[in-house]
């Protein structure tokens, strides 16, 4: 025992040093977000930190964040879902077509008047169905997630165009539906446009529910296990096909929710809605610390990642930087995030 003591204590010392490093690595993203907020506040003379602007920023990234939450589950299991942007478009047009104010000549279903919840549910069901197909292709037909969802990306977008027929968006939506995108809660009655926007509320609710799911349920543990080692997970009794299908369905439903939020925000269901948003969601997930190597990731990381994207876009807006440059900046951010992910993994293996 005596000659073990120095070894043990030195192990403990190193352990503590390591944990400090891990702590820094783990919460670095929050520091980066804070840094960006401060820098932009200085550069915009404080305009960027006005409460109205901050709420706007969060509202703008709510859809990205909601999709990113689903994407986090997918990427933790070593998957990817490229179809979410198209699911946004398809669910938006389906939902919008069912919630148009009757009477107008542009109404898809002439003479029919559904309650708003039917439209919302139909939109979510479209997302679930697309996710189900993704999941079955991956779990049962053993397609690579990249391929299966790339196919679905094209299929869902095509269906959205077909559904709209002449390509004109479904407009003149019921105010109850538009409330989902434009409304507020907890507001001052004198000022209707204050308080918490509904999309932000939905983003927060989805994030909390997903955090619970990932950290406090069997489903969450199994998600990590599949990403950690799929074969070992199967040997441990996890039904991989079932889990895979559920995860892609969840991603589809959340994309559909984002589609409803975005169409309600603009008051029209447009078949081109959500183009390219899959890349924003993936970016938010990856800069939030979810590893492309699988088995690692958190919801709060993705939430912060989405906020970071919002803050940067907003800051560049306020500084009158061309939107084209914003796309370039986004590309740089995702590359840097992946480099950090790679290096984290490298240090683990050494």
């Amino acid at each position, binding site marked *: 025992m005596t000659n073990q003591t120095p070894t043990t204590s030195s*192990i403990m010392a190193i352990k503590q040093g390591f944990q400090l490093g891990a702590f820094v690595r783990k919460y670095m993203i929050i520091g980066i977000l804070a840094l960006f907020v401060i820098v932009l506040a200085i550069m915009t003379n404080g305009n960027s930190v006005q409460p109205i602007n901050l709420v706007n920023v969060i509202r703008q990234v709510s859809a990205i964040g909601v999709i990113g939450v689903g994407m986090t589950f997918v990427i933790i299991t070593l998957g990817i879902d490229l179809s979410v942007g198209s699911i946004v478009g398809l669910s938006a047009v389906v939902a919008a077509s069912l919630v148009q104010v009757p009477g107008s000549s542009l109404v898809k279903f002439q003479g029919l008047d559904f309650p708003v919840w039917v439209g919302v549910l139909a939109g979510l069901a479209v997302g679930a169905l697309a996710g189900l197909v993704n999941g079955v292709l991956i779990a049962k037909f053993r397609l690579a997630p990249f391929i299966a969802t790339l196919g679905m990306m094209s299929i869902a977008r095509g269906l959205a165009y077909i559904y709209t027929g002449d390509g004109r968006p479904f407009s003149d939506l019921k105010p109850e539906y538009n409330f989902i995108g434009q409304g507020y809660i907890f507001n001052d009655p004198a000022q209707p446009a204050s308080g918490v926007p509904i999309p932000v509320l939905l983003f927060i609710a989805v994030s909390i529910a997903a955090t619970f799911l990932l950290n406090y349920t*069997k489903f969450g543990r199994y998600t990590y296990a599949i990403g950690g*080692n799929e074969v*070992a997970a*199967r040997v*441990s009794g*996890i039904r991989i096909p079932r889990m895979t299908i559920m995860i892609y369905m969840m991603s589809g439903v959340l994309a559909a929710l984002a589609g409803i939020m975005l169409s309600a925000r603009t008051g029209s269901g447009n078949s081109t809605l959500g183009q390219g948003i899959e890349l924003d969601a993936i970016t938010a997930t990856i800069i939030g610390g979810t590893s492309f190597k699988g088995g690692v990731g958190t919801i709060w990381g993705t939430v912060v990642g989405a906020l970071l994207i919002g803050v940067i876009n907003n800051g560049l807006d306020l500084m009158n930087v061309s939107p084209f440059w914003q796309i370039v900046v986004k590309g740089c951010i995702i590359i840097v995030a992946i480099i950090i992910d790679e290096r984290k993994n490298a*240090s683990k293996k*050494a």
Partner: protein
Amino acid sequence: MGEYIVEMQGIVKRFPGVLALNDVQFKLRPGTVHSLMGENGAGKSTLMKILAGVYTLDEGQIFVDGKPVKIENPRDGLANGISMIHQELLFVPELTAAENIFLGREIRTKSGLVSKKAMIQAAQEVFDRWHINIDPAAQMKNLSVAQAQMVEIAKAIAFGSKIIIMDEPTSAITEREVARLHDIIRQLREAGTAIIYITHKMDEVFAISDELTVFRDGTWVATEPAAKMDRNGLISLMVGRELTQLFPKMEAEIGEVVLEVEGLNRGRQVKDVSFQVRRGEILGFAGLMGSGRTEVLETVFGIHAAESGTIKVKGKQVKIREPHQAIAAGIGLLTEDRKKTGIMGVLSVRDNMSMAAMGRFTRGGILRKAEIDRECEAQRQALALKTPSLNQQIQNLSGGNQQKVLLSRWLLTDPDILIIDEPTRGIDVGAKSEIHRLMSSLAQQGKAIIMVSSEMPEILGMSDRVVVMCEGRLVGEVSRAEATQENIMELATRFSDESAIA
């Protein structure tokens, strides 16, 4: 300084959570075989990976031929005449043996094109000189493990390496192939090459080494001429304590039959296999590699679907097409390949431990975290698991400790039947005897244990009954009393006539 070809002094290497090497020294004489011994996690492989440039050292000095050198990557290692043959062989399976030997320094024609012909010829020359009987034009993927190993050795020789490190070269090859490997090692030694040999197999150490260096817990313990050491002395240096018994199989009351397998078939690896196991019994599955031992048990567990056959658990026929059905029937399987099919590397020790028993640890799908912590902590103490915390990523633990976590994973499911494939492969002597003790006490608690092992002493020491497989068939059964190395080997090599000709 001419006495040593390599000297390593004051080597320190830290990994997340572990001090892997603490002020370690190592001296290698030219033209000798020097074995490194120690429990897993003792630091042998780490030290050698530093020498070969796979890892970089945090502190310390390396001298080659008396001159201080910096080795920061495998290229530096090669430049200093050091080659390492890894436990898991690294080669390009689609390329030929010759192309692998000259990988990265291909022989070119005058016009600058790669000359396959010249490389095959050069490889053939190396093979001829060292009596290696392999076709240099064969694709690596068609070679056996032992042949691939010979190609790696040829590669090291072709590089002109003066120092060749072999990390557990015999863990996956047959006894005859081991003898062949040792022949080559002796030839190399005569030609002046120094060989560093890492293994857990005592017999080999004494058969081949000139010198031994023992490590323990990341520290250097001793360096001695092999002739001055014996088995027990070596073990006690490695573990720092006297091991009274290596295989402490304790008497257990043998009860009723809990698992009955009949007429199990699956492809060429499982042919009409029938056997049963009783409570309190340890059933050993012996046989050569590729005889179908692992496949039979993986089929029983539902990793592969059986083509035909029945499985009865406690008298009731069960349908097992997937592992979750086997687990529900009360069966657990600790797989052979820890890294590929066992651990979830980036997940915590706690997650790895509790994963198979999640059903028990959740109510309505929601985790009972306090319960998980309590039971995992109990396992950690019962198995004397060495980890800074249950939150530690399992990939940072040593092999023996990983194996303990995986054993805990199954114990937490409280199975009636526990299948353990190679319970102690690649783990150190101390952890080995702990795992054996655990298996005994599980049998005493009335569990039926099926153990697959390639190590004869383990089979003989632990099993109440041994069944032997050859070419996918179960060729015989011997009781504990009658089992000897000879009769098991005799059964294991009962090849059918056709294959003996082929």
